[in-house]
Every structure is written in C-alpha cells, then in structure tokens.
C-alpha cells in the first residue's frame, strides 16, 4: 500500500470539501477501497463465515446436526439445583441484596475513593465514592477493572521457595534467621524496594524497620514515576512540595504536555471540575479555555481549544519562551527561536493567562524535565495562580525521593555485594527497571531475595521466595489521595489464596509473631488519631471511606529567588547538547500504556480489550508515528519496524496516528510481558528494553527502519462505522452565541407524525439518555463499567480483529482537519433505544420487543441468532455471540459476575439495556416505599463511572428531570435522526472555545 499517495489524495479531498469534515481513520479519509468494503458490511469480512471451505457433505452434516441440536436442546429438563443457606446468617446480610463498602484503589500510590458492591460477600462491581474528593463518584478504567484482577485465575496462589510450596510459617522462620544474622551489623545488608508509598501505616512500619536496623535502606521505584514533578518542586521551592489544582476556578489552562485530566493523581476530580466549567446550559455561554502543548496525542488534548503538537525537545524551549513572554522575574537572555505557529501559540496563551491572572493554571506533564516544572511554578507564582487555582501543600507521599536515583543506588549496592537481603514489595523491577541499570544481573548477586507479588512474574522468577500478595480488595491498608485525604482501605473478602499484604510482610520483619493487617492498621491509627473514642473514629472512617480532617491544608510556597534562573540555565545546558534535526533519526517518546499502565494490568482481559483512547488499538502496543514522518520513512500502519536506540533494538509494529507531532514516535511501555498469566504474556513488544535512566521519557535520536514484515493489529477504529452525515457535531462558543441552534440545523429530523406505524404511548416513565460531547474525554471508564456491570465477555485479539468485540458501549473517535493537525472528538455510542426501532420489526421470534417505557428489550432466551436485528440497526450497536465467549467453567470467574444480569451464551444477540436491572431494582424499591422514582435515583453503569458526568440518564416524561432539561438544550441532536428512528439517546454538540486571536491568524 502506498500510503503517501493515499495521504496526498486525502489532503486533496479535504481541501476540496466545504465546511467541516470528520473522519475516523486515515483509510477512510483517503477513500481506501478496503474501507468502503468494510463500511458496507455489518461485520468485517469473514466475521460471519467459515474459516475454511465447506463442502456439500460437511454442510449437510452441520445442517442436520444443528437441526437436531436446536430441536433437542430445547427439550432438556431443567437440572435440579441446590439451595444452600448459611449456618449462621451474618449480621446485616440480607440474602439477595447487595451491600456497599467504602475503600480505595491506588495507582502509583495515590488513592481514589471507592464504593464496592458486594453480593453475599463477593465483590462484583466498583463505583466511585461520591464523598471522596478524588472521586466524587467517578472511577477510572483501572479501578473499574479491579474486580477482574481479584478473580483472575492466573493470580499467584502459592507461597513458593525456588518453585517449591512452603508455608507462611516456614517463610517467617527463614526470614527471622536472616534478620538475626543482620542484627549485629545494624541491618546493613537489608534493602526494601517498594513503589511510591502514600500509606501512613506502611511509612510508619518502614521507619520502625530503620529504627531497628539503622543501616537498612528503603528504595522506591515506579516505572511510570513522577520524579520530574518532585525534582521540579525541589528546584523551585528548595523542599518537597505537593501541587494540586483547582480547575473549578480556572478560566485559562495551559498544559505543557500534561495529560492532566486522564493520567495524574487527581485526574478524576480535575476532569470533573474542568468539565463543569465548560457546560453551556440555558444560554449561559461561558467556558474556560484549554491550551495544550503535547508531544504525543493524549485524551486531554482532545478537549483542547488549541493544540500544538511538538517534539519533547521543544517543550523546554516553549516553557522558556512563555517565561520570557510573561516576564517572569529574573529571566533574561536571548529570545528563543520559535517556529511561527509556536510563537503565535505562546504569545496568545501568554496574553490569555495574563488577562486571567489568578484564574489560570499552567501545568507541566510528568515527563517534562524538572526545570520545566520549576519554570511553571515560577509562572504560576508570578500570575497569582498559586494559592488560588494552584494549591501547594506538604507532600502526599511518605518520603518523596528521586526514584531513579534510588533504584540506581540499589543496583550499585547489589552489584557491589552490599545487599544480603532484598524484599521487593509489589512492582516488577526485573521487567520495568531502566534498561541501562542491569537490574536483573545485579539482583542475582543478592543472597536472599524475597518477593511479594500479585502474580508470579518476571521478578518472581529471579527471587528465592515468592509470597502471593493480597489484592487491594483483600487488604487492610491505608493510602492518601491527591489532596492528602486518607482512606482506611478495608477488604471486601478474605484473601482467596492466603495472600499477604505489604504490612504483613513488614510485620514479619518487625514483630514476633507477625501481626495481621487489621491489627497493624488499627494499632497505627490508635496511636496516630488520638481520638477520644477510637472505636467510633475507626467505624466512621471505614464507613465514610475517609479519615476526617486528613486533607493536607494548602500552604503558601514561594519559589526561591533565582530558582527560575537556575531552571533556565539547566534548560540552556541541556539544549547545548541537542542533536541536529536532519540526521534522519526520530525522537522516541516513552509513555505508560493507556489501558494496562506500566504493565501491571497486562493480565486483565477487560483492560487488554479496551480500545486505546486515540488509536483504538486493542491487545497490542505499537510505535506511533505521525503521517508526515510515516510518509518520509515509507511506513504504513501495521508495518513491522526495528527501533534502535543507542544500540538497543526492539521489533515493533508501526501505527500512523493522526495528530502525532512530526519528527517523533511514541511507544507505550507495559507490553511484552514475558511471564504473567495466560492473558498478558507474550503480546506486544517491550518498550522498557529501550528505556534508560538518561532518557526515561524521551530519547532524541531513535532510528526506525522497516523490516519488511507486517503485523496484524486488532484495531477497532473502523468497526461499526455508521455511514451518514454529521454524526458528531462540533461548534465554537462564538458560533453558539450567533445561533444556539446550529447543531440542530446540521441535520434534519422528520416530523413526529411521518410514520406508518402507530406510535407507542409512554404513560409512565420514558427513559432516555443525553450525552454531552463537550464533556467526554474518551477516558473509557464507561466502557469498563459497562463490561463489569453487564457480564460482557472478553473475546480476544483474533475475535476483535474480526469485528466481534462485545462491548455494548463503544467510544467512536472522529478526527477533524488534516492528518497532521487532526483534532479528535469522542462520541460514546450505545443502543439508542429507538422509539421506532428498526431492529424490533425484523425479529422473526419476537426476541427484541418494545417495553412500555420505551426500551428495546432484548430477550436472550428467545433469541435464535438470525442477526436480522443487527443487520437492520443503523447505529451498529448490537453484538452477537459468535462463539461461547463467556467462560462458564472457571469457578473463580463466576464469583465476580453480576447476579442480576444473564450470562449470555453462544448464538445470542445482545446489546445495551440502559442497565434495566438497575431500573427494575430502583422501581421495586420505590414501589415498596410507595413513592415515585426520584430523578437521579437510577444511574446507568456508564453514567456512574463517568468522571465528567457527560452521560445523564432519566425519565423524559418528567419535564424537570436533568435529562429532559438537557434534551431541551439547543445543542441537543439525535444520531441519524433523518431515519426517523427517534432515538432515546441524544447528544449535546461539542463546543470549543478557541481564542479568536489564534483562530484568525
């Protein structure tokens, strides 16, 4: 495929088109015949065909067999089932009614408050804790997928010493013996390696350890770490300072390569506050503005009003230019040489920030150099943002350290033979430590290596002892959120495989006999909380999911004089060693994977099958490059390339990502796991192999060469395409002010009476959904929430490639503009629950029919799998079980299923039900209490998970309901309304608020 020609034809087509043009993939844009073919099919080619040729005899055999099976299988008697009561019914359990417990999940140490649904002691679904400041009821994809992680059949189940099964007591004895040997030398040979720790209790334990063994050392390393943030704060303030943001007060936001709304400690809260400032309702036409400078397309960038895609090496330059433009104190020197678009971007953003001093935020990404963070602190301080929208406090972490330095020091000690006992608690350093350190080789010099891990992974392989770790949902622990709020995390279930927590492992170092996790936590808080009545303190904290009054108070922090100058000097110095631009090399950016993070979620099928927010790739990572660079290198999507960085090489598939900065490529680390469970091992390529301490986030000179091979990637971006006009409607705030109805005028809705069928009357409730496209960040939380709530199976890469993914809710991603500067828009699409549903009339067996409240009910036990409904659905939202996707045999997986939703089997069509189990549940509760269902009482799973409240469900017969009010907004439009399907799901057109100065130029 000659991609270059295709792109040229695409550009030509775009230049000819009038008005706005939206596209989903480069193939669509270029009018690739293969795409046209795909478009006209319900499922991609071969999705519904036999693998190999079918001869007449085989056909007749199968026809006869299916007739016999179809006829006879309906005649089986229902098997006898057992009913097993409790011996003693635990207090507060009502069989058949779920209970909710407050706890938290951590990622990179930072906590998000959760409410976990438990059915008779089995956690089945994660929700956000509405009272928790970092959640406000929302969750991210990782928290949603915790349930599958808990019930993962591949989890480590045994305590092993060199592969032999041992007991916990045997381990404790062995450890105590080793510790006795250390006692005389003050523990000089003891090393503990953890991830980032915010748990006050764990911090206390480590401190006790260091008290008992004064020479023992604690190291922290997180592959997707925030060293630059920590070092930047140190550079600016001379001490460790935590910075958090208040987006609810921000009028102008400038992000220097920060995916702040998706991937930062407070991102759920930030996204909510940010979206609240951009909801245009009832003629209130005011929005905040987001300037995004990014080096690899991010989901945050898709919300930007102005996006500038540049190479990482330019980020410090632009920060310097911004500092100069804003005249931040003590900064002088020669002006930066900027490209025209960069200069205009910076000057407009700077003017905007200056115009909104004290009501703006400048934020730098985790991967931006420390000096950039220091400059950003200086800017926020100068503009008066600090203390208003940018809040400083004492650090959330127990002990903020430079983690790369920390692990380097550990490796040096190991190599020098100074380490006798290393306990690796969590993490997976053998896999994810920087490649140049030689961690594994040094590790082998340690005489006693202990490992606490959720799975037997690469690191366990190199350790003497592997101790199964208790899952988050099995553990007593605590953690702090982005603002310092402490959650006492309570287990939902006894450890399934006798796993131990980090506390219990450390207790084996400290206490004889070791204490249980609960005792450790209670003992710590009994002394710390100093509550008059500890028992009430304990119960209240557990119940609320927060320890009252633990949020860290904001404190004034002023950058040290000269900090900005030092940062500038550091940037200049780094710039002096910059390589020339024209050597044919590309800059290589390293980022954590959007769905499996640093690799820890690799064995989670829900996350593997989740399409990545921008590329829509599943089950793989790829080397992403921009269309221009791909054209120069002659690379097409799916080409296998060799990436070489300083002599280190990996083989990876390439993928052309519209909007990716030119001259750079991005790889996501986390894939290429060599040893984890059945799901995650051996897929993707290992980008850690290229990642070194000197270039953790970005390497300026990587060689990318085609190998001539091709790799099939399971990318869903073209699946279920709807051919039609104006599916996603986007306008500017200015256009809205001119004509609030602009979105509605982009399509035509036929009058209500133009139908041959008699209409349904909806006398009671009429359920509907409104989705605000301005708020959707494409974060995917709704998709995983839907999977968890509705028992949606994982189908695997091969099936996804055939377009057989089962997600009831998909997020369509559209591009606008040319391939290089493409702006992306997200559109969540689930069943529209049409009032005039094309699917209902074609079902020969009445398996899909209209409910009295307007739902297109899907009755699995009636469905015979003709797939006519799916053929006739213009929205492509029906999913067919081509094979037996639901695992009905693995016992542990059964524990995690939602008992209120049928587990579908092969040959059955399924689709979004608006979470009818939740509707029925709320209705039954309301009717028993003899009151109407309150607006907001029913939340669909997707709505509940959404960080920005983009999805609103409710009764459209109730004119005062939130959903009715949204549907009355002038921005409201229906998808493919011209077909007269009268969809119950409608959209609010996406509004952007571009700066007129930049727009004009």
């Amino acid at each position, binding site marked *: 495929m000659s991609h270059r020609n295709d792109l040229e034809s695409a550009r030509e087509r775009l230049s000819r088109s009038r008005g706005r043009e939206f596209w989903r993939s480069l193939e669509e844009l270029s009018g690739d015949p293969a795409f046209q073919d795909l478009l006209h099919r319900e499922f991609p080619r071969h999705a519904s065909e036999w693998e190999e040729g079918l001869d007449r005899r085989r056909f007749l055999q199968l026809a006869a067999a299916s007739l016999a099976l179809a006829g006879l299988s309906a*005649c089986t*008697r*229902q098997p*006898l*089932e*057992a*009913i*097993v*009561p*409790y*011996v*003693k*019914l635990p207090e507060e359990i*009502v*069989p*058949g*009614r779920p209970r909710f417990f407050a706890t938290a999940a951590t990622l990179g140490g930072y906590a998000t408050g959760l409410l976990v649904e438990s059915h008779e002691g089995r956690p089945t679904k994660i929700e956000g804790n509405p009272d928790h400041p970092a959640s406000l009821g929302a969750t991210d994809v990782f928290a949603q997928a915790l349930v599958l992680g808990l019930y993962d059949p591949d989890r480590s189940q045994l305590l092993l010493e060199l592969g032999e099964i041992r007991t916990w007591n045997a381990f404790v004895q062995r450890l105590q013996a080793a510790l006795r040997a250390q006692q005389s030398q003050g523990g000089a040979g003891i090393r503990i390696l953890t991830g980032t720790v915010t748990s006050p209790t764990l911090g206390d334990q480590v401190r006790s350890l260091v008290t008992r063994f004064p020479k023992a050392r604690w190291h922290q390393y997180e592959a997707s770490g925030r060293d630059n943030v920590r070092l930047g704060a140190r550079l600016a303030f001379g001490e460790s300072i935590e910075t958090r943001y208040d987006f609810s007060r921000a009028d102008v936001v400038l992000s220097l390569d920060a995916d702040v709304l998706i991937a930062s400690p407070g991102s759920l809260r930030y996204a909510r506050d940010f979206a609240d400032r951009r909801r245009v309702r009832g003629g209130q036409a005011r929005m905040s503005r987001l300037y995004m400078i990014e080096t690899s397309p991010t989901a945050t960038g898709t919300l930007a009003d102005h996006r500038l895609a540049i190479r990482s090496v330019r980020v410090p330059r632009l920060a310097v230019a911004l500092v100069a433009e804003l005249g931040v104190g003590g900064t002088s020197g020669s002006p930066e040489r900027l490209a025209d678009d960069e200069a205009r971007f910076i000057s407009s953003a700077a003017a905007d920030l200056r115009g909104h001093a004290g009501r703006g935020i400048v934020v730098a990404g985790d991967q931006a150099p420390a000096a950039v963070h220091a400059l950003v602190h200086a800017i926020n301080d100068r503009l008066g943002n600090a203390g208003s929208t940018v809040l400083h406090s004492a650090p959330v972490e127990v002990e903020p350290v430079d983690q790369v330095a920390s692990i380097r020091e550990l490796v040096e000690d190991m190599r020098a033979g100074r380490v006798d006992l290393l306990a690796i608690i969590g993490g997976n350093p053998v896999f994810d430590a920087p490649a140049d350190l030689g961690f594994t080789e040094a590790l082998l010099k340690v005489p006693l290596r202990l490992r606490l891990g959720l799975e037997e992974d690469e690191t366990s392989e190199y350790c003497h002892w592997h101790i199964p770790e208790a899952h988050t949902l099995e553990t007593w622990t605590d953690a702090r959120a982005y603002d310092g709020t402490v959650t006492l995390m309570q287990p939902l279930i006894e450890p399934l495989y006798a796993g131990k927590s980090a506390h219990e492992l450390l207790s084996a170092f400290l206490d004889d006999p070791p204490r249980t996790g609960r005792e450790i936590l209670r003992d710590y808080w009994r002394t710390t909380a100093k509550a008059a009545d500890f028992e009430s303190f304990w119960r209240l904290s557990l119940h609320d999911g927060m320890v009252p009054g633990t949020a860290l108070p904001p404190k004034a922090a002023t950058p040290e004089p000269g900090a900005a100058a030092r940062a500038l000097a550091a940037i200049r110095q780094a710039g002096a060693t910059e390589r020339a631009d024209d050597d044919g090399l590309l800059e290589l950016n390293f980022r954590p994977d959007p769905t499996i993070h640093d690799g820890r979620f690799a064995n989670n099928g829900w996350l593997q099958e989740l399409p990545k927010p921008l590329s829509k790739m599943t089950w793989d990572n790829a080397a992403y490059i921009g269309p221009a660079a791909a054209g120069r290198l002659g690379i097409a999507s799916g080409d296998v390339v060799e990436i070489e960085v300083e002599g280190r090489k990996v083989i990876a598939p390439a993928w052309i990502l519209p909007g990716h900065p030119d001259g750079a490529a991005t790889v996501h680390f986390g894939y290429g796991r060599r040893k984890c469970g059945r799901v995650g091992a051996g897929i993707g390529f290992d980008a850690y192999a290229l990642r070194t301490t000197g270039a953790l986030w970005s390497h300026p000179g990587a060689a990318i060469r085609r190998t001539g091979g091709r790799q099939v990637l399971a990318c869903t971006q073209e699946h279920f395409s709807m051919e039609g006009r104006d599916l996603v409607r986007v306008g500017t705030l200015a256009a809205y002010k001119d004509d609030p109805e602009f979105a509605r005028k982009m399509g035509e809705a036929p009058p209500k009476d133009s139908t041959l069928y008699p209409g349904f009357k909806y*006398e*009671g409730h009429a359920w509907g959904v409104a989705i605000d496209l301005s708020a959707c960040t494409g974060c995917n939380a709704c998709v995983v929430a839907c999977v968890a709530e509705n028992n949606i199976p994982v189908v695997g890469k091969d099936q996804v490639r055939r377009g057989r993914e089962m997600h009831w809710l998909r997020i369509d991603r559209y591009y606008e503009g040319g391939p290089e500067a493409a702006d992306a828009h997200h559109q969540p699409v689930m069943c529209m629950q049409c009032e005039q549903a094309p699917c209902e009339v074609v079902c020969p067996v009445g398996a899909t*029919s209209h*409910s*009295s*409240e307007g*739902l297109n*009910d*899907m*009755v*699995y*036990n009636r469905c015979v799998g003709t797939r006519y409904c799916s053929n006739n659905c213009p929205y492509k939202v029906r999913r067919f079980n081509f094979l037996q996707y639901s695992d009905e045999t693995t016992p542990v997986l059964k524990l995690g299923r939602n008992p*209120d*939703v*049928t587990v579908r089997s092969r040959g059955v069509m399924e689709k979004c*039900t608006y979470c*009818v*189990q939740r*509707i*029925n549940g709320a209705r*039954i509760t309301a*009717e*028993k209490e*003899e009151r109407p269902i309150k607006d907001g009482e029913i939340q669909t799973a997707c709505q509940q998970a959404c960080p920005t409240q983009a999805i609103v469900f409710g009764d459209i017969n109730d004119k005062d309901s939130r959903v009715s009010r949204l549907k009355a907004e002038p921005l409201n439009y229906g998808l493919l309304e011209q077909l007269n399907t009268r969809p119950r799901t409608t959209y609010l057109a996406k509004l952007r608020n571009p700066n007129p100065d930049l727009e004009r130029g």
Partner: protein
Amino acid sequence: MSQIFHRSTNTLSRVSIYAAVFVLAGLSWVLMALDRSPYTTRQGIVLKQPVPFSHEHHVAGLGLDCRYCHTSVETSRFAGIPPTATCMNCHKLIWADSDMLEPVRASLRDDRPIVWTRVNDLPDFAYFDHSIHVAKGVGCVSCHGRVDEMPLMRQEAPLQMEWCLQCHRHPETRVRPRAEVFNPKWETPDQASLGPRLVREYGIRSALDLTSCSTCHR
C-alpha cells in the same frame, strides 16, 4: 410393461396423506403435552431432601409465620432459606436427639451448611423478586400452594411463563389484602370487586407494563 404398483396403492397413498395431517397434529400435541407435563415442570413432585421437613407440621400444626424462617421475603428478591441456627433455636430443646435431625445438628457442629434441593426453581433467565410481589398483595399460597397442607414440600404451580402471565395480565384475579399475604387460609367470595379495588389501591402497574419483557428478563 406391467404395473409396478398395485391399484390399491392409490387408496393407500390418499389415506396416508390424509393421515399424515393427523399424525403431525398428534405429534405436536404430544410434544406440547410433554412440555407442560409434570415430567418437565416437576409440578407436584416431591424431591429428596436431606431432612424430611414438614411445612404442614410447622405452619398448620405449630402456627409458625412464614417470615419466621423466610426472613428476607419482604425485603429481598430472595425469600431466604433459614440458616441452621434458626432450626436449632427450637431443636436444641425439642427433638434434640432425633435421628431425623442429625443433618441439622451436624451442620451446626461442623459449620457446614445443609444442602437442600431447590423445589420452586425458576429458570436462570427469569428474574423474580419476592419482596415486590408480597408488597403488592400476592399471597404466598398464590404461587406456592397450600404449604400448610404439605407434609413434604412440592412445587404447586407449573412455573412456566404462560402461568406467570395469567396473573401479570390480570393481577386483579389474584391480589389479596396485604394483611392476608401470609395467611394460607385466606379466601374471599368477592374477588371480582375486591381485586380491581386492590389493584388501584396498591398501584399495581398495567398489564402492558407487567408484560414488558424486561419486567422479568434481563
């Protein structure tokens, strides 16, 4: 050339074509009858249980209320099967040495639940909620029959969808005052006027609502 078939074949073929209609109709009838027969539905069949528990004795004889054992019937979709501890409330004193009750004592002793065989077993794709039926005035005996007259528990109703729909289409034929829900002996001579009144009073939804597929299937 001689005839291959005898002349009588004509008659025979006419008769067999005619008969085929009856045979097919008969076969369909047999299949439908089989589908509704107790063989398929287990209606009226007593299943083997670890302990021969008598509802007749406990309900009619001793006068226990249904909710003494089925505690969650008013609050949950599941009526609740009593935990062993509930049985032992009385049986640690009464019949404390009975051989028949050994499985119950063993359960408490070993902390292992008693495994009963489900008698009224709806298919897994039907989502039935006890609490709302009780709240809307559907008596226990309306579905479970006169358990106070059953020495050993059996399934009273066929529990097939057509049976459920009889009531979902015409709830007025079955509802009773809420106060009488747990009274197995309650009867009224005047369901025709009481029924519609209770349907209004209890806010029982219309037949259209109650027969929407998602009312029971999801």
